């Protein structure tokens, strides 16, 4: 055995890891070779040195950190628990959501000049045509408050003219805010409604709105046909209306949902500043027609309401006593082609008529 081979086995010798048949030859060589013996000793000392090296110890807290990291379950479970939080957390969350929607409405309102204009209009909105939608106004009132209430914001159809839009401001706003607060669960839909607001709305039956709006309605005088009010609303005014009415509807909100559908028309009319009857009057000469209208209404013992600042031209609001209404209708028919778009089955003592003059 040469020295190189011998030296290669020295570690094994130190560790008592030599194969049986290796021991003899190596021992023999070492007996003869001082150099290799020296090598063995050097190696032995190195190993001894290594073995006296301090043993590292894991840092403090290591075990805790490992155990913490080894717990995979908790967070998904924790997350699940958080998602299905107890009532104590749910309600405040919903309230917060309601505030969020209201806040969004305010934001939109402030961003939309048209809305602000609409809001500035006095509560007692002069009757305005607001036609389209469901002709038979008030009679309905059945509409499921819940579902209908929410879409208050969503306008039924594009308002024929601006006035209707503006007028809607009052009732819809209150209704809408009320809805938001009464139906926390439907808040989820509120944002969607907001979206609908801006989009061309298909509009649910305005009918329902009256119900909602009634208890909340801002104390606007004139009894406007609920339906019309709600139906004609364009998105913007509604949105704009929300903020102002917010505070007012705060309390009555609960009533909205509980209000019997039958309560409707009459109650609404008294609260909402709306016209009872609305229609279009097609004439050839608007100025002449307006003069004729004024004469007519005066003759019948009624009054023509002063146009409000942002009343678009072509809309006239008249108020006549119930008894005189038939004659009024006849008179309108003589002035031009009278197309009533909304006529409640039951007229109030003072009938407010919104006449939209068209060509």
């Amino acid at each position, binding site marked *: 055995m040469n020295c190189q081979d011998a030296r290669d086995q020295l570690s*094994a010798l130190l560790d008592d890891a030599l194969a049986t048949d290796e021991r003899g030859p190596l021992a023999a060589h070492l007996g003869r070779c001082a150099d290799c013996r020296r090598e063995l000793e050097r190696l032995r000392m190195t190993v001894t040195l*290594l*073995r006296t*090296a301090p043993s*590292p110890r894991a840092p403090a807290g290591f075990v805790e950190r*490992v155990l913490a990291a080894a717990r995979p379950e908790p967070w998904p479970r924790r997350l699940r628990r958080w998602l299905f939080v107890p009532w104590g957390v749910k309600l405040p969350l919903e309230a917060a959501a309601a505030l969020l929607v209201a806040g969004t409405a305010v934001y939109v309102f402030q961003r939309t000049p048209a809305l602000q204009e609409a809001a500035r209009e006095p509560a007692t909105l002069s009757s305005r045509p607001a036609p389209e939608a469901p002709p038979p106004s008030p009679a309905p009132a059945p509409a499921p408050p819940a579902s209908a209430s929410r879409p208050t914001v969503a306008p039924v159809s594009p308002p024929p003219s601006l006035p209707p839009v503006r007028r809607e401001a009052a009732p819809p706003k209150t209704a809408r805010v009320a809805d938001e607060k009464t139906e926390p669960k439907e808040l989820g839909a509120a944002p969607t409604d907001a979206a609908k607001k801006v989009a061309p709305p298909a509009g649910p039956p305005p009918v329902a709105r009256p119900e909602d709006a009634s208890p909340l309605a801002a104390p606007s005088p004139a009894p406007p046909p609920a339906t019309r009010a709600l139906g004609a609303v364009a998105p913007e005014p509604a949105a704009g209306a929300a903020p102002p009415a917010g505070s007012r509807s705060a309390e009555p909100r609960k009533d909205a949902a509980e209000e019997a559908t039958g309560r409707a028309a009459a109650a609404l009319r008294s609260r909402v500043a709306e016209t009872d009857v609305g229609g279009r009057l097609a004439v050839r000469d608007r100025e002449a027609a307006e003069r004729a209208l004024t004469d007519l209404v005066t003759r019948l013992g009624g009054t023509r309401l002063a146009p409000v600042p942002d009343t678009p031209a072509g809309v006239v609001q008249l108020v006549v006593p119930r008894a005189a209404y038939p004659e009024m209708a006849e008179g309108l028919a003589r002035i031009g082609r009278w197309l009533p778009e909304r006529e409640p089955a039951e007229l109030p003592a003072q009938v407010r008529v919104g006449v939209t003059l068209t060509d």
Partner: protein
Amino acid sequence: MGEGPAGDPPDLLERLRRGDARAFEELVIAHQHRVFGVALRMLGNAAEAEDVAQEVFLRAHRALAGFRGEARLSTWLYAIASRLCLTRLGSGARRFSRLGDEALAGVADERTADPGAEAERSELEVALQRAIGELDEERRIVVVLRDLEGLSYEEIAEALQLPIGTVRSRLHRARVDLRDKLERFSP
């Protein structure tokens, strides 16, 4: 600590396989210094060592259900530790020669000593860690497992999945390399 002379207590193994949290905690406590020690010696800095050490236990935790107990728990943990360290080193083929005190940050010698001996030992420790760091990692792991952790050739062969002959030759090479660097400290 959970390991009898003949191996690991069977009930501990059973509890571990079942996912007994307490058993796992016992495992970590029993082997934390070993696992951390290997990582520290191999990687050269305490932060990384702890990182790897924690990973070793987490992997073990995940694989406990399938641990058949053919090897001792410690050997199994050393195997995971070695593999992780080599992987981490392999990606950078790192050699650390200037470790200084950083390498010893995780080393807390529990032996009390007089200042003189303390200083001597410190110097030795620094030199030792530096010398170990200069070794080729394949040799480094073997000498760490053998001379610093006390594993047998068979255990090392099992942990590293190497033939015993390879363990032997690598170990010898490592020791020879170290001898030249540490000789001045020899008593």
